[in-house]
């Protein structure tokens, strides 16, 4: 599992918390750049660090970045900055999701995350060492925001406006409030939620495949064990070595993946993809996947994820006149 240390860097996402006068808990996290649109909706600008989505956050005057990662199950905090939250009785033996390969995770209950206007209360977090990500990306990472936080919202990940819009939803997944999306929703696909993973059925060259959708995946991944008919759409360019925080390395094949279709109308241009053995990663995702769609999915589609309805809606990139 050591090799997944470096894959880990491919699976990260962030969250934005905001300033809020009503500080209810001492250990609250605030997303300083979040913007209240109405009582049910918050917009959070993000930056891309390489191919990771990050938002600014503050905890006890400590500023840093959170990675938005639909591939992570829980809120993760960086041990580098939150070692003081670790006490003897919150050490845990196992975690789920991509952090399976983290040696010594620690669980901590976070009382409140405050996005501007929206608050997320009483979330479990795992405290893990993210120093290798900080080193490679040269940024200060406070943590990773995953499924456990995002699932209660409709999440619009907009790579055109570089922002995430979080909208509260009711128990049926209907967006609360009267404000609609002002740009036209042009298409949609269904997905299944398997544990915390968004699982999409698609096909390549007519062969049906199962993909996980992960904002924290800097590059798509495709399982080496797939039939030739599928791999014919993968145009290998190079063998590359991926390095972890330690000296361990693994060689994978890097290339472009063509002809990914998720429906008759939803398909993609070539996507940067790593060909790798996903069997071990499937354990982390808690389901069997043929591939993982990451950054390039969102770079090609402005996507709205509704976890309750298990639907993804698409909005076109504008045509600049």
């Amino acid at each position, binding site marked *: 599992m050591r090799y997944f240390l*470096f894959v880990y*860097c*491919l699976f990260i996402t962030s969250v934005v918390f905001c300033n809020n006068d009503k500080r209810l808990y001492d250990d609250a996290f605030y997303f300083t750049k979040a*913007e*209240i*649109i*109405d009582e049910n*909706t918050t*917009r959070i*600008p993000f930056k*891309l660090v*390489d*191919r990771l989505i990050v938002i600014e956050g503050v905890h006890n005057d*400590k*500023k*840093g970045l959170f990675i938005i990662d639909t591939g992570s199950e829980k809120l993760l905090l960086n041990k580098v900055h939150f070692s003081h939250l670790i006490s003897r009785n919150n050490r845990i033996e196992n975690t789920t999701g991509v952090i399976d390969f983290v040696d010594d995770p620690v669980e901590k209950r976070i009382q409140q995350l405050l996005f501007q206007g929206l608050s997320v209360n009483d979330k479990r977090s795992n405290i893990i060492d993210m120093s*290798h990500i900080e080193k*490679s*990306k*040269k940024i*200060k990472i406070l943590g990773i925001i995953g499924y456990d936080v995002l699932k209660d919202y409709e999440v619009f990940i907009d790579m*055109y*406006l*570089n*922002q995430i819009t979080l909208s509260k939803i009711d128990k049926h997944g209907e967006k609360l409030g009267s*404000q609609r999306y*002002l*740009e*036209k929703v042009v298409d949609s696909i269904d997905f299944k939620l398997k544990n915390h993973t968004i699982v999409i059925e698609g096909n390549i060259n007519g062969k049906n495949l199962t993909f996980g959708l992960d904002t924290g995946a*800097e*590059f798509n991944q495709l399982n080496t064990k797939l039939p030739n008919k599928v791999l014919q759409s993968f145009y290998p*360019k*190079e*063998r*590359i*070595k*991926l*390095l*972890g*925080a330690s*000296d361990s*390395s693994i060689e994978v094949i*890097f*290339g472009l993946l063509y002809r990914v279709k998720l429906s008759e109308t939803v398909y993609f241009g070539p996507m*940067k993809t790593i060909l790798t053995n996903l069997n071990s990663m499937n354990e982390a995702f808690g389901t069997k996947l043929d591939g993982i769609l990451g950054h390039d999915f969102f770079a090609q589609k402005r996507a709205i994820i509704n976890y309750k309805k298990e639907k993804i809606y698409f909005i*076109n990139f*504008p*045509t600049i*006149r």
Partner: protein
Amino acid sequence: MKAKFLYISIFLLTFFSSSVFSQKEKVKGYRIEGDEIVFTFDKRDYEKVTDERSQRRMDFDDFDIRNVVVSGEFNFWSRDAWKMNKVNENIYELRKKVADFKDNFEWQFKFVINNNFWAEPSDKMANITPATEKGKPLHTYNLRFIQAYPDENGNANFSLKGYPNAKKVILAGTFNKWDERLFEMTKTEDGWRLILQLKPEVHQYKFIVDGHWITDPSNPNKIQNEYGGYNSIKEVRTEVEFYLYDYLDANKIILAGDFNDWSEKDCQMVRTKKGWTQTLRLTGGKYHYKYIVDGQWILDPHNTVKEYDGKGHINSVKMVR
């Protein structure tokens, strides 16, 4: 492709090598023209090539050039994908959009002749970086470019008064991931100076004077950083045109937006043959705006991107990059 040239680490992709991007030597292999990067191969710049198959180092004059290809991290070191156009007997060029290189902070590349011979950069080139494998030098170089680069005609002027006895002053910031070697400032009569071409963004920076990090003493614009200290702020702007088609019967049209605090008089549009125009200098980011046509507030009818503000109003949205 040869492993020794191709050693790429996703993890280390954004690390800079130990070489100094000195402004005393010339940057070779590319230039930036507007929104394009022009890869330029001038055969007079190269003395040696390496045979892909035999690994033999040869003199450049030993063979005829049939074609030249740009090969790098951006095309997975393909030896045939990015064929260059012959400009004259010595020079080959290939133009690409700078925007296509947004994924990475730094890109390494080389030129391949006749799909087989790697042109070896010399140590006289400013933008070389040692090719390495597992951290060990391979005694050859790759060329590299990053989106920020020194340019006498650049858009960001950095200067530091005094420090006549300093041996070396480095400019480091968000534009180069706080690299401590890359941008060495040039000594002037009264201090140190460097001009960069930067993306329109709000950049943070510091000077490193003989190893000591300092903020810019002449710049009052600072922000507290995550380490409790301060970074200086440089806001780089670019010209952004707002164009409203039609409305040729109107007498007066005002451009109002969050960039001018929604002023109803500051920014009058200029009539053209097909509509109205106004150009502003803005830094990168998202802007809300509307037009006031003879006192009537309207959305931009040709812009599909719209958003609510926090008060329930709908505005047109422009992204500046």
